Every structure is written in C-alpha cells, then in structure tokens.
C-alpha cells in the first residue's frame, strides 16, 4: 500500500501505548490507520507486542478454577460462539484504509464534509470523548489557521501533502505535535490535501476570530 516513501513515523511511546491499549479511541484509530499504510511501523508494533508477550509470560500465575480446563474444552466442543469481530471482507482499494472506512461508512465519497471557512472542510468522526478525530480537507495552497495545542495532536496525511514550519508531510506521513508547538499547516500546491487529525484537547488559535468561532466549529 506504500505509494510514497513515508518519512514521518509514529513515536515509540505511541506504539507502546497502542500495543498496551492505553490510547483513547481517536488516537488508536489514527495509529491503526498509519500502520495500515506503513510496513515499518507495523513491524515496530510487533516488537512492542513482543514486549507485551514477555510481560504476560513473566506474570505470576493465578490458580484457575478446578474444572477450568474441562469447562474450556466443553466450550470448544460445544462450539460456544467466539465473540469476535469477523475479518471485514477485503474491498477494492480506495483512498481510506480499512479502519477509517469503518468510521466513515465507506470511502472518501461517503464522507459528510462541513465547510469551516476559506475552503477548508472537516468531518468529525464518532469516537469516545477522551479525544476527538476528524477528517480535514484543505484545498491546494490553502492554510489551516496558525494554532497551538494544549495536548497532543496527531496529523496523518491520506492524500496530497502539507508543509509547516517543521517539514513537508506526504501520504502516510504522520506529524506528532505536543503543546510546545505552534504551527500553520499549508496544503501543497499540487493537490488538495486530506488528513486525519486527532487531538486530546481543543486546539488554541492565536487570532481573535478563530477563537470566537471555536465553540461553533467544534475544533
């Protein structure tokens, strides 16, 4: 699936937190989407899951109930239903990797965009309240207002590219921004840019008007 050399990857702490299941849903979604596009981070996740395996292996055993094994074998023979999501059928490749398609209910054409000004559009995805995730559509050459962060913000490029003070980010690249960072992402001139952005705190805009607009935009 790698169509572009991905040069901005997940941090060790995000991968370990995802392996340990310590992330809010919006962050897990963003990490899972990046890994769907990035074989290197998929392998790195495997290494952090190995650490989870080592923790399990070293756990001090707790005695099982007396009839535990026979009860388990009975459940196997009885074909007790395994409550597990079946693997989704593989669909024709679109722009959105499978984890995102599950939240959108389809590929890009199923996204319900809402304009938020200057040609920029967003679609908020349904996740738990601890953090929010949204798709952003930034027309070629347009900018998202200069903003800082109170928490952590992950921005994953799905199509096109954006440039900010730190670097250029193309398809599959992920930017991990913390509270010290002020940036103004500008979409590359070549193509409209579509990103998945997740944050665990409301964004803070520097200008007066965006700040007033913030409660209405829910960003």
């Amino acid at each position, binding site marked *: 699936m790698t169509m572009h050399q991905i040069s901005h990857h997940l941090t*060790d702490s995000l991968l370990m*937190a995802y392996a340990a299941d310590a992330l809010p849903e919006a962050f897990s979604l963003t990490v899972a989407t990046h890994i769907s596009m990035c074989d290197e981070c998929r392998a790195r996740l*495997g290494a952090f899951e190995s650490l989870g395996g080592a923790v399990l292996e070293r756990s001090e*055993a707790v005695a099982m109930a007396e009839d535990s094994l026979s009860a388990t074998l009975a459940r196997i023979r009885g074909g007790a239903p395994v409550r597990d999501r079946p693997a989704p059928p593989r669909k024709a490749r679109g722009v959105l990797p499978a984890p995102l398609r599950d939240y959108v209910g389809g590929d890009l054409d199923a996204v319900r965009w809402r304009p938020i000004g200057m040609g920029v559009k967003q679609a908020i995805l349904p996740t738990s309240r601890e953090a929010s995730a949204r798709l952003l559509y930034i027309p070629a050459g347009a900018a998202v207002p200069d903003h800082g962060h109170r928490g952590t913000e992950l921005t994953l490029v799905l199509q096109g590219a954006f440039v900010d003070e730190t670097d250029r980010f193309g398809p599959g690249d992920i930017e991990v921004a913390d509270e010290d960072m002020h940036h103004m992402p500008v979409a590359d001139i070549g193509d409209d840019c579509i990103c998945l952005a997740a944050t665990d705190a409301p964004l803070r805009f520097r200008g007066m008007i965006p700040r007033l607009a913030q409660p209405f935009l829910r960003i």
Partner: protein
Amino acid sequence: MIAVRDTRDEAAFARLFEHFAPRVKAFLMRSGADATLAEECAQETMVTLWHKAHLFDPARASVATWIFTIARNRRIDALRRQKRPEPEDLPWGPEPEPNQADALALQQESEHLGEALAALPEKQRVLIEKAYFGDLTHSEIAAETGLPLGTIKSRIRLALDRLRHAMK
C-alpha cells in the same frame, strides 16, 4: 502450539492451557478484573486460541505474544474499555509455509527479550508491567519510557529486525 494448529491436538492444548491460562488470568486481574471475570475471560482467551489457531504464524509472533494480543482484545470487552480499531490486514505474500529459520529466530529473540525484561532494575520493570496492565496513560508512557526502555531498547530493536525480515 503448532500441534494445536495443524492436528487439533487436545493434549497439546491442555499443556498450553496449563502454562498460559493462569498467566492470562493474572494479567486480567492486574488489569482490574475480579477473579470470576478474569477466570471467565481467561477461558474465553483459550477458546479463541483454539478457534483461531490456523492464523498463528510463528515467524510473526511467539505463542506468548499471540496470546497477549488475544487477551488484550478480551480485556476490552470484559472491562468495557474504549474501542481499539485494528490496522488493515496485510495481504501476506504467497507463502503457505512460514519460513522455519525466521520462526526459530523470532522465538529465540522473544526469549532474550523476556530475559532482558527480567534483568531490568525492579523500578523500571514495574513501570513496563504497569503500562501493559493498562495502568499508565499515553502521556505517562511518553514521560516514563525514555528511562526504562533505555536498557532493553537494543532487545526490542533485534526483535524488530527479525519481524522486518519475516515480513519481506
């Protein structure tokens, strides 16, 4: 595990159960489940292991790691944790039999990783265990891992090299 996968061997399953079920139960209790829920959930984990045995690939995960990922998913349901979206499955190459050398190398690397974890100073080891038991948030992991990961980072890197190789 291979006997369970390839010949549905119940005696082999019983040995896996004896070793892993009590550890899965402990893992779930450390994660906040009471003994009854942990028992139920550990049994479910082992039932899932049996039913999904055909998906086990020793070149990609040790048995302990594979069981850890199953138990992690059971924990989400049992403790009503937030949803955890999974990455899209990779279309693995046309390789019906996983490479034996890759599998052996990964098993050895997993053992070394376990030994390295055991050899950590207690404070660091406890932090890593807390992370996997679900007691730390991402920002706590970000603030703490620089420290304990330091000494086992080379082991994680070697495990990663094996996985990279197996995925090619």
